[in-house]
């Protein structure tokens, strides 16, 4: 993005903000937290600049600003600036919730306490040089403050978990009864399969890819959540804000549709129906495993692999 475009975009946003800013400022009660209106406008502008793409219509921009949770945004920024009263209010509203949320994420009192405390430190954010670098300054009011806190906690939890994963010793893993054979073999087989594609019909791979590519993002999200992450239908439904039965039907339909589409794709590539079905039903674990590929996979396991972390954390969170 060149400077000119940035400028123009900023100008567009500013012009969109102008008419609504008065109302938003009043609504945010930013003055209560020691933020002058002008400063709050700047904050809003910064938020707009962060999220609004170039060339946003001013109507859209205005709608965007209106959709912000300005009251909570002002409170967060007030806290970030170290306003006493803002902190008072913040703590009244969220101190207990913070721990509850941490508990619901970590499911273990000690971890939850640790998580909440560390987040609290981040939020308060005075570093060793006495400067205030509050994490609250990064809150932009797109979602509720409470939700944001929860998300930040979740992020923190995942990050922490990853770090811990790296320091888990081999002994511990054995103690935990991790089945080295089961999971890695599958992953290895998966990796091997992709590399030694010769074991499978070469037409299969592109067919599946093209069908998967044709899915909508949401569909892929649903599939990944359900089949890869092993989430329950209810969980998936909640994240999408729909009813569980909707997701249930959808997963069903997707699974059937995928199969059908892949079969027809294979057919298009010259396979007979029976061949295609056999091909599709090949159990990847039955495939001849390329030992070299598998070794490569195992040596790679030293570094963080999102998939592995995911599998593990899913287990813990269950």
């Amino acid at each position: 993005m060149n400077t000119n475009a940035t400028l123009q975009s900023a100008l567009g946003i500013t012009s969109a903000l102008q008419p609504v800013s008065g109302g938003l400022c009043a609504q945010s009660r930013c003055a209560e937290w020691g933020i002058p209106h002008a400063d709050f406008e700047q904050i809003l502008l910064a938020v707009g600049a962060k999220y609004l793409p170039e060339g946003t219509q001013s109507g859209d921009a205005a709608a965007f600003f209106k959709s912000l949770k300005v009251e909570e945004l002002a409170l967060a920024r007030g806290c970030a600036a170290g306003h006493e009263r803002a902190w008072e209010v913040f703590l009244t509203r969220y101190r207990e919730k913070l721990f509850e949320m941490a508990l619901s994420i970590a499911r273990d009192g000690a971890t939850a306490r640790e998580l909440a405390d560390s987040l609290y430190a981040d939020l308060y954010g005075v570093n060793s040089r006495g400067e205030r670098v509050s994490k609250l300054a990064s809150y932009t009011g797109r979602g509720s403050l409470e939700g944001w806190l929860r998300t930040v906690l979740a992020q923190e939890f995942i990050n922490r978990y990853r770090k811990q994963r790296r320091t888990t010793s081999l002994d511990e893993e054995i103690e935990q009864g991790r089945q080295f054979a089961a999971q890695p073999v599958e992953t290895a087989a998966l990796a091997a399969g992709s590399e030694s594609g010769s074991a499978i019909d070469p037409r299969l791979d592109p067919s599946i890819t093209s069908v998967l590519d044709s899915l909508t993002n949401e569909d892929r999200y649903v599939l990944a959540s359900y089949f890869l992450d092993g989430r329950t239908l209810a969980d998936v439904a909640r994240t999408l804000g729909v009813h569980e039965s909707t997701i249930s039907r959808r997963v069903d339909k997707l699974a059937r549709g995928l199969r059908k589409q892949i079969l027809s794709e294979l057919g298009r590539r010259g396979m007979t129906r029976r061949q295609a079905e056999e091909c599709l039903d090949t159990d990847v674990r039955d495939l001849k495993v390329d030992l070299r590929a598998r070794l490569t996979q195992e040596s790679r396991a030293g570094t963080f692999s999102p998939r592995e972390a995911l599998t593990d954390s899913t287990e813990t969170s269950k």
Partner: protein
Amino acid sequence: MPELPKIVIRKLAERELRPDVSHPDADLLTAFVECALPDRDRGTVLRHLADCPSCREIVALAQPAEVAADTVISPPRSRSRLAFLRWGALAACAVLVVSFAMLRQRQPGDVPLLAKNQTSVPSSEPRSIEQGSVAPASDKAVLGYADTGDAGRGVANQLTPAAPAAAPIAALPRERKSEAPAMIAGYDAETVPGTHSKAERALMPLARAAAPRRAPSPTRAPSPTNDSAGFVANGEISSSNVTTQSFGLPLNGRSVSHLSRIAPGVGAGAPVGGVMGASAAAQPSAADVKTGLVKAAKEKAAASDEAVRAQQQGLAHGDALKTADAGTRTGSVAKAVRTGHEGGIRGLVTDPSGAVVPDANVTITNTATGLSLASTTNVAGLYDVSSVPAGPYTIAISKAGFQDFVRSGVNVEPSTVALNATLQVGAVSEAVTVEAQASSVDTTSATTSPTTAYAPNDKDAFRASSEEMANLPSLVAARQAGIWQITAAGNLERSFDGGKSWETVPVLPAGVNPAARLRVVAATGFQVWVGGNGGVLLHSQDAGSRFTNVKVHKRNFALTGDIVALAFSDAQHGRLETAEHEVWTTTDGGKTWRPDAGAK
């Protein structure tokens, strides 16, 4: 369970292995979780989520743990229909009225094995089972045998010829007493549950054998008068459904004390007890049998003693012993099993100091049917009115020296409702209103003044535990929740006095745009719904103490219009309409909303 070919899952997983450098920030993820993203941003986030397991994990973890905030507490549901049927079936079996005759022809003077009534405890045993054995009107002389706590003995002896001087105990509904004079035996089975099985087991074959014969006369006991055998227990419950309940009974063989109770809508003469057991089994309507009525009354036994003797003479002549085979005997064990329609109320009555209040009068009145039952607290201050039909009740507890405790609108479900009461010591001014003896009232002590009765109904003096509050039905809830309005300025107001005065109720759920002007309000009981501009829908489950923001959306299609109409026909079913005439409805108390297909 849908399945994907493993190879497809593999391909899905492969896409994820690609490292994803930049993740959406916490704000975007939060907004995604809260369904507050515009479609474009939502698409971006979803695309990332589809490929990024870490962020999926975060999103999953960041789900509000208590979706409960947006859910509606559904009212306690009565047991499922199936459960009811199951009870019904059980009742049908149990209510088989079995009578077995004990003919001791050879020892006419012998005292029958008739057992004394067991002492029964005011029991909270949920299934109150009462059994009565009745000799049916058959051409054979049959004497009902009252099986009591000595069931083992009774059973063991059931086939021995018995001298019939048995003191039969009647099993019959009160209002039928005169019509069905031949009462035989009943006992309060509630006391010793362990004995039932034995007795029942022994009796069951008899009942079965008897059933075919009896089946054709479903509702009426054969007239006993001209029947030599004629001990008929008329177990038919007439519509007034008076039953007896053993409750705090005297201990000797006399009888259980009776608490007349109203059986739930058993009208229509569902046969119970006595001969009718057989027919009850034969009829599907047996499931409707609510209670068996057994009144163990030794007095009656004595009264009918003469008759019994006469009968026995008849039996002796007829050599009934030989003929009274199982097929001709009809035994009855009236067994009143509480069915799915009944519940109970029990609780502890204490005074303000926490001391229990014995002998307080407890009256429960079904506000729907007007039927009323009375009880008293025992020495431990406990009362227990069991086997009452489900429905709304008013409970009044009175005790001399105390203010009356009245709690209306207690909903008795098919389970036992606990209602503890604290009686307030009568105030001096109230003492004035009572009679001269009132001077003896000690208004500071809860234990004196047995002579004085108070009648003030000061509902506000009740202490309601949270448990009791939970039991308050919506009627009371509505009274407490007040009535609501939205002012022209968009403030939510509430009135407790029918609109004479209004107070502003603050609406401050997290995440609601304070600029959104409120426009409409709908309330059912404690459930308050407020709609406003920009698709703002607020919900309070506690009469406005705390509001939560409800996102009305279906998939990506969220409600954004101004809500101009909002109506809830009950806590579950609601409908809202926007300025653009979009209509959304909910049937689950607002958990999910769906756009009305016809609109827009």
